[in-house]
């Protein structure tokens, strides 16, 4: 099956710093989504981004499908950004929206 690797696995930032999280995938995809899992376990969808660039407040994402990677940018980080960030992809074969999750990046934002 498709492999999804995220880097870095762990990241510690001081509040106000910027960061870039990377997601590499091993095959073409129909669908790519970024999620934030807060410390209580709730997964929140950040972006649905199979290609191109999107922005939502301090967050933006870019997917370059032809080169099989996606980037999530966090600017002016806040302590509430702490948690685990997952990218998840849907391969082009099979039934719709069977997401395979990446390995995750654990982010801690400190004061």
């Amino acid at each position, binding site marked *: 099956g498709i492999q999804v690797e995220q880097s870095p696995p762990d990241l510690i930032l001081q509040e106000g710093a910027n960061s870039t999280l990377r997601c590499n995938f091993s095959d073409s995809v129909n*669908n790519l989504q970024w999620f934030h899992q807060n410390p209580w376990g709730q*997964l929140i*969808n950040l972006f649905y981004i199979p290609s191109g660039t999107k922005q939502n407040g301090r967050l933006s994402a870019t997917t370059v499908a032809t080169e099989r990677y996606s980037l999530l940018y966090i600017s002016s980080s806040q302590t509430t950004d702490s948690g685990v960030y997952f990218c998840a992809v*849907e391969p082009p074969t099979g039934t*719709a*929206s069977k*997401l395979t*999750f990446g390995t*995750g990046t654990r982010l801690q934002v400190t004061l």
Partner: protein
Amino acid sequence: DAMVIQNPRYQVTQFGKPVTLSCSQTLNHNVMYWYQQKSSQAPKLLFHYYDKDFNNEADTPDNFQSRRPNTSFCFLDIRSPGLGDAAMYLCATSRDGGTEFFGPGTRLTVL
């Protein structure tokens, strides 16, 4: 607010004693998913319903079953829980395989 609701939030069961987890949604989405997430791991898809069609992942144990009596509700039945089934169980929904919306999860403990 439209949402995905999971009950209970915490469930304790005994080894081998059947347990049922429930998920309901007010988003009127046609696709519903069940994921298993073990500690420090990514969510893993167990199965999903696309409308009334049930789609089981190849590596989902037979011990796990699901029911979807109507559009709004979906149940996860674990027939004989083992210690290895202790995990967070996440329900998610989407419209035709688009953006996935997750519930808060049910944390299952097996004694």
